[in-house]
């Protein structure tokens, strides 16, 4: 089954329609997604700013990371549950949204950045735990994280706008390609 077929199947389920059309559940899920962003991205920003030496300079990096991580993970779980529900409510249109696709790519990059940081420079944290200015690799990871989460927020917000939706044609060939639109060939 292709991803598009899977999205179409999701679209055909009663739960998807019910969530999409519900007066309160959809707004509640969407609001929870935004509120969890304050916690999850908020604490990610705090750690990033510490890595860049812009806040909590006297607090060891391991303490910032260790004490905030449980909450960051909690926020991440809420973001994922509500995010998946938002996709479930509007599967085909979201799957074919260039902003959603950009968001997924940024999310993968953000995940790689976390993995790179934790398996790399963070392994030698004992050497620079108290440094006001972290090593270059750590500062780069912090900056990359700030940029990527910012891009994820912007791309996520843009999913709501339909400028590049597949059912609005004609679109530039690039948009149709990037969004995976199935466009019938022009009738002669």
């Amino acid at each position, binding site marked *: 089954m292709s991803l598009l077929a899977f999205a179409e199947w999701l679209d055909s389920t009663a739960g998807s329609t019910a969530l999409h059309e519900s007066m309160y559940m959809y707004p509640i899920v969407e609001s929870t997604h*935004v509120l969890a962003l304050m916690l999850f991205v908020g604490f990610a920003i705090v750690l990033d700013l510490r890595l860049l030496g812009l*806040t909590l*300079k006297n607090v060891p990096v391991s303490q910032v990371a260790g004490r905030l991580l449980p909450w960051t993970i909690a926020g991440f779980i809420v973001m994922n549950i509500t995010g998946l529900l938002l996709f479930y409510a509007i599967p085909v249109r979201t799957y074919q949204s260039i902003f959603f696709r950009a968001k997924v790519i940024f999310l993968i990059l953000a995940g790689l950045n976390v993995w790179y940081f934790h398996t790399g420079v963070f392994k030698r944290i004992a050497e620079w735990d108290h440094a006001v200015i972290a090593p270059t690799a750590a500062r780069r990871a912090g900056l990359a994280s700030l940029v990527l989460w910012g891009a994820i927020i*912007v791309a996520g917000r843009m999913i709501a706008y339909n400028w590049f939706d597949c059912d609005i044609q004609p679109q530039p060939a690039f948009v149709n390609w990037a969004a995976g639109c199935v466009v019938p060939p022009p009738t002669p």
Partner: protein
Amino acid sequence: MLLPFFEWCETLWLGQAVIGSNWLFPVIESVHLLGLALLGGAILLVDFRLLGLGLKERAVAELAIDARPWMLTGLTILIATGIPLFLSEPIKLYYSGAFWIKITTLPIAIAFALTVRARVTLGDSVRNTARRQQLVGALSIALWITVAAAGRWIGFS
């Protein structure tokens, strides 16, 4: 009574510029969200500490002093982007219950952050008992959640 004021707001060039563009509203809205994330981190860092969570090894005042410029930056971004968003649809907002919840809790949340919460987090008075700290932390979180949720809800009305 306030309707004429909202109607006057609608005539201002800033709102008209936002209406006249396909991209401005979504872009400003996105920056509004970025500001919210920053404010969330700066506020919750201290409020969690007031509740005895998060960076509990550090003094409340230390966290509050370090978080303060970022809290003020976040607030500035939110207000600077919130104004053009408001000016682009004042009449719709006048009739939105969520807007009125937001616009009444927002000044309360800001005043609370700059007065009561600032005194409890930045001062080292003996009157700042654990109980008082918890109360202030919980109130601050509740206020900002109300402002943010009501703000998001404007889009559904």
